[in-house]
Structures are given as structure tokens and as C-alpha cells.
């Protein structure tokens, strides 16, 4: 992966479009989020306190929201494993059938929903998505989780928080906060889905 020569700069709202995160930045941000997840898992163990010698990581399940939350969740799990030696359960939860905008935007193809064999009951679920915007995807994901089991707790990790929430939802782990205007678009590209790691801010026309 090419290392960027320039540090990433976040444009001000309505400012110039451009690259928010380069490939190297994405890797760094994912590493930092992985460390934060490890730290939080260690401090958020159940009160019965039974330290199983894993820093609470065995309880952790990363659930990616398709499309790009899924590779992100896998990467976070791989980094946590690299740092701690503990394998992390990863799942995916398709939220299409839980969306509140189906009637506005039409039906779309479904993505798989796969949970780890151990399930999510009584564990700490961290939802993983690429961009946090209105918060409606997260609301749909919370509804989906409720049908899938009863986690001990649910947290949210996003690569980019671009503001403009329409619901009282807040991320627990944020890769990068980006002030944006509503006319701008944040595009996350990941090697697994788009062939390259980058986060772009573009102007205008929503497609």
C-alpha cells in the first residue's frame, strides 16, 4: 500500500472536496479503533468480574452492517487479534428489511445475515459501519439485533462520523469526525469492496 506523503486534512463545512483519509490513514485509524475496543472491553467486563484472562474480549462480537461495515468489522477483528492474540467473533447483520426508507427508495437486494455460532446473547455487540450520518441505519440495525438475540450491551463503531443526525444516536468509537454540509457526500472505499482504501469527500449531486 502506498504511503501518503501529505497528512490528511479535514475540510471545513462546505469547503473543498478531496481525500479525507488515504490508505495509510485508514490503516492507522483502524489500528487506533482496535486499541480502543481492546481498552473498552477490558473495562466493561460483567460485574461478576470473572476475568477469564482474555480482557473481556471473548465476550466481544463485532457485527458489520453491509456493505462496507462487514470488511471493516473483519479488519478490526484481525487487528485486535494481532495486538492481543485473542480471536474475535465477527458477524454481519443485513438491515434492509428493517429500513424505514424502503418505500421512498425502493426495494434492494438483500445481503447475508450471519452470526457467530456462539450467538450474541449476553455478549457485548459492537455494530460496525463505515459512515454515521442520519443514524437511521443504526436504528434499523438495533431493531435487527433485537430480533436476533439479547446482547448484554450494544456499542457503535464507525470509520467516519459526518454529523447531521436525525435520531438520538451517538457512536462509541469514531475513526474520524468530519464536519460536512448536507450537499456533500462522504465516500468510503475499501480494498475488499472497491479495490482501494480511501475516504473521499465530494460535492453535490446525490446519486
Amino acid at each position, binding site marked *: 500500500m502506498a504511503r501518503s506523503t501529505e497528512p490528511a486534512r479535514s475540510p471545513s463545512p462546505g469547503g473543498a472536496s478531496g481525500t479525507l483519509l488515504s490508505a495509510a490513514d485508514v490503516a492507522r485509524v483502524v489500528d487506533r479503533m482496535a486499541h480502543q475496543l481492546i481498552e473498552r472491553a477490558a473495562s466493561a467486563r460483567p460485574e461478576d468480574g470473572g476475568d477469564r484472562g482474555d480482557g473481556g474480549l471473548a465476550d466481544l462480537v463485532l457485527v458489520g452492517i453491509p456493505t462496507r461495515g462487514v470488511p471493516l468489522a473483519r479488519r478490526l477483528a484481525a487487528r485486535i487479534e494481532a495486538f492481543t492474540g485473542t480471536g474475535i467473533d465477527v458477524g454481519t447483520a*443485513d438491515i434492509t*428489511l428493517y429500513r424505514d426508507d424502503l*418505500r421512498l427508495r425502493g426495494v434492494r*437486494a438483500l445481503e447475508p*445475515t450471519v452470526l457467530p455460532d456462539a450467538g450474541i446473547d449476553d455478549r457485548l455487540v459492537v455494530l460496525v459501519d463505515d459512515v454515521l450520518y442520519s443514524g437511521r441505519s443504526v436504528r434499523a440495525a438495533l431493531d435487527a439485533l433485537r430480533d436476533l438475540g439479547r446482547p448484554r450491551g450494544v456499542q457503535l463503531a464507525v470509520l467516519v462520523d459526518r454529523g447531521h443526525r436525525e435520531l438520538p444516536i451517538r457512536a462509541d468509537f469514531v475513526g474520524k469526525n468530519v464536519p460536512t454540509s448536507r450537499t456533500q457526500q462522504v465516500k468510503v472505499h475499501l480494498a475488499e469492496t472497491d479495490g482501494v482504501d480511501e475516504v473521499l469527500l465530494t460535492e453535490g449531486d446525490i446519486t
Partner: protein
Amino acid sequence: MKRHLLEAADLDRADATLVLDTAGQIDQALAGREVKKLPTLRGRAVVNLFYEDSTRTRISFELAAKRLSADVINFSAKGSSVSKGESLKDTALTLEAMGSDAIVVRHGSSGAPHRLATWVRGSVVNAGDGTHEHPTQALLDAFTIRQRLGRLEGVRVAIVGDVLHSRVARSNVRLLHTLGAEVTLVAPPTLLPVGVGSWPAEVSYDLDAVLPKADVVMMLRVQAERMNASFFPSAREYSRRYGLDARRMGVLADDAIVMHPGPMNRGMEIAAEVADSVRSTIVEQVSNGVSVRMAVLYLLLGGSPA
């Protein structure tokens, strides 16, 4: 996707594949869940308008709609104003005036769902019309074949029995052809429709010659209620020439499967030991029916404005 699902020809290859893929994802998403319910069609009303008797299709559609959180109204002609002489059109308009978003219709007359679709604003799903079509049955059959054999392209399917009266056969020939399977119809000449030569399928009168080459054998029910002429000399003779018994099952390829849309006449077109064998997908077909119908309802209704 079109707004209605009236016949298998309404689905091109991309649409049909989308339905099967969606059904697969729904199947997987609901597997092992305690709450087998999705909120997708909350506030929508689906009417099951059944002018003919049905067990599995009506219950299957009802369950599919309920699992998507739609409100379901079951209407059967018996015990309704139909017995007072109300027409199909007036019945449909009445239902729509009460706010139905989709009508799932089974009717004894071929083409009734097509007429219905011109009168109502919501979606119409054909759940079997006369001897014409039964598209969701073909979809669930295709889904079952793909699930068992892993593919549809190039799969050799023998459809055996009363093709003349079978809407299942008509829909399956069309859909399986769209999806790339090779269909052979096997029946006595009296039970083949006029013009079968123009269908995208081979025709044979000899079951024993077809069986060794088939990946899928789909047995059709002998529809006693439509047997108003002598199509064959006796039930015994039919069964001997066109019934699937244990001996005939023995000549099938190792991974070939046996299907039947139900309801079965055990001992007539299919022997009990064949119906209960591991090759038989008859029970899977029923459970796949719910997922496939959920996919159809989602794709037809999910995106449309209320």
C-alpha cells in the same frame, strides 16, 4: 420487477434470480431465530382471495405475509357474497376500497388474475388460475432444485404426468427455461396440451427412457377433479406406465431428486416409498415455499408507496 406476478413469463432471468437470491437470504436470516418475524411490510394489507380450495398455497402465503408483518385477510369464496352472485370485479374493488395493498388470487378460470390486475391499483399475485399458471410454485421448485443441486443451468428436469391440466407444469417449463434448465415433458399423448410443440421443452411418451438421464423428476398430480373425459384406460394402467415406483427410482442417477407439488396421490403417480425416500424434496418444497413467497411479497410491495 413488474408490479404484478401473473405468470412465470413476467420474470426475466435477472428478476427470477433476484427472487431466488432474496429467498435464500431471508431463509438464512431467519434460520435458528426465536422471533421469525421481520417488520418490512408493517401496515400493509395482503388479501388472500381464494376461489378454489387450497391448503399449502394459502397457508404458505398467509405465513409469508405475516412473517413480514403485513396484515392478512383470508377470503374464500365459500361463505362470502360470492355465493350471492357477486362478481370477481366487484369483490376485488370491495377489497381494494377497504385498503388492500396486494391481492393473492387463486381462481378456477385461467386468466382471472390478469383481468383482476387491470381493475385494481395494488399488486396481484397469481396463486394458481385454472389450468394456466402457478408462478410461485415454479419459483419454489427452482429454489429447491438450486438448493439441492447447487445450480439450475443445464439441469435436466423431467416433468411427468398430467401436463394438460397442470398449471404447475406450465409455469415450471417457462421459468426453468428462463433459468437455463432443460425440461422434458413425459405424459401420455392424451394428457399433453395442443401446441406443446411450441413450448421450450422436449416431449416424450416413455418414462423409462427419460429417467436415467434426469437430474430432477417432478411428478404431477393426476387431477381427478378435472378428469371429465377418459384420458387413460384405468388408474392401474396409468400408474404402471407413468407412476414413479421404487424400481423406477432405482434407475435414477445417484444425486437425482424427486419432486412433487402436492397434494400427492400416493400409489397413483408416486409410490409411498418414493415419496418418503431421501431423494424426495416434497417437504423441503413446502418450507421453501414460505421463503420464496416472502421474497415475492417483499420485492413487489416493499418499495411501493403505501
